């Protein structure tokens, strides 16, 4: 009986997988092959983007299990809409747009599920945007590794309290390293709006992370 070294081998034949990778086929070509019914091409797309999409959704939702679930849903949506894909933009833009929409939809669902919102107490009354209350634990930790971990946790928590319209561009820019142009296409807005929102998001974050700066 043949033993499997990785669970990935269960999904895709090793020979075929290596052949596809070696081919370094472009995303567009893989998507075209998927459209024609080549499931292995779709599997290659999944393996190329699964970590990026999971990570991005995790930064948006701050919930790993939910992020994995939404990342899978992203690929299912991609597969279902493969016939509607237009190759005028980069494939990554397309898949990030799907992921962003799913993440924002999830955030709105969560907001509706809240029985009592404490954020109302901290809303600005002068028309300015407001952030949710998320007091940062400023107690210092002794161990360096623990300090780094705690700092990352604080950053993640601070990001997750940003309003969703600021959160997505900030993550795409400062975590994912996407260009303004690509972010504008993912979020289907103008570059000027993206720049403005990122600047505002950094201001919010700076206020929340003052203890760590």
């Amino acid at each position, binding site marked *: 009986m043949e033993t499997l070294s990785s*669970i*990935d081998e269960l999904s895709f034949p090793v020979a075929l997988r290596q052949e596809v990778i070696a081919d370094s086929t472009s995303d567009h070509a893989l998507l075209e092959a998927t459209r024609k019914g080549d499931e292995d091409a779709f599997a290659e797309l*999944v393996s190329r983007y699964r970590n990026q999409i*999971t990570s991005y959704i995790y930064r948006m939702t701050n919930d*790993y299990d939910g992020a994995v679930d939404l*990342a*899978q849903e992203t690929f299912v949506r991609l597969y279902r809409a493969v016939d509607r894909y237009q190759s005028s933009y980069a494939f990554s833009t397309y898949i990030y747009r799907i992921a962003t929409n799913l993440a924002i939809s999830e955030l709105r669902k969560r907001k509706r599920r809240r029985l009592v919102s404490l954020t109302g107490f901290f809303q600005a009354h002068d028309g300015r945007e407001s952030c949710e209350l998320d007091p940062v634990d400023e107690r210092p930790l002794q161990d360096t590794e623990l300090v780094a971990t705690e*700092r990352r946790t604080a950053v993640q928590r601070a990001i997750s309290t940003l309003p969703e319209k600021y959160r997505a561009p900030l993550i795409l820019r400062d975590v994912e390293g996407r260009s303004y142009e690509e972010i504008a296409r993912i979020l289907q807005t103008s570059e000027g709006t993206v720049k403005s929102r990122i600047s505002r998001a950094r201001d919010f974050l700076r206020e929340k992370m003052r203890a760590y*700066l």
Partner: protein
Amino acid sequence: MVNCKNICREIEEANYGEALTASTMEHLAGCGHCHRFYDDRRKLRQLVASLEPVSAPADFDMRVRSRLASYQNGARAGSLFANFTLGWPTLALASLVLVIGVTLALKLLNSPANSNVAVQDGSKSTVQTPKQEVPIYVGNEVVTNAGSRAGEQEAGGSIQRPKQPKKRSQPSSVASLRNGRRLATQEFSSSATPVVKKEEAIASIESSPVFQIEASPQPLRLSLDYSSGVSRTISVPSLSFGSERVLTGNGSLVKSSSKGSW
């Protein structure tokens, strides 16, 4: 100050780790405000960039395949309702259908054809005079005037028709109903009761063993004439207090126990 604004914009829009231009660096060396802004942004972006990427679980691909398989099975099983979701449009449509259905049901219930009273528009409210079926006794047979005329011919014209009591105008009452309609009713229970004197009865028995007396009180008949042309007659039988006997001179008995006629 305009220059500071441009410098800050350049700092803001620069890629992470990208070197700034020489002129900007020169400005930063002499401008405390822009330098603080540069430091803040650099530290903040460093902090955010320190977030480590998260990996998908090992069975991610399998789970995606499983989802796709269930999606494809579901699409095959119910392609008609594959995209059906219980969203606002669906709820709005269902509400609309419900409102229309309830409205129609209420209209049907309130329509005159379903009411149990004679309702007619305007002042033309009339009550159909009930056809009175008067039983006539021929020997042991009972024939009604609404029945076959053959029996009448068989009897050779010997059937004694009772004298119909002179019709009096029967009291009627008119009541206003909703929707401006009026209800007209006529009370038959107050109609005159025919009186048969004993001598007349005995005399008629002597000439013929059959005599007929109109039942009193008569059965209450209420004719309902709907505006749709359908009419309905409701008959309420009169109360019977048992048999009546008429004692003739030679002691023979004439007995009748028919309902409402004797």
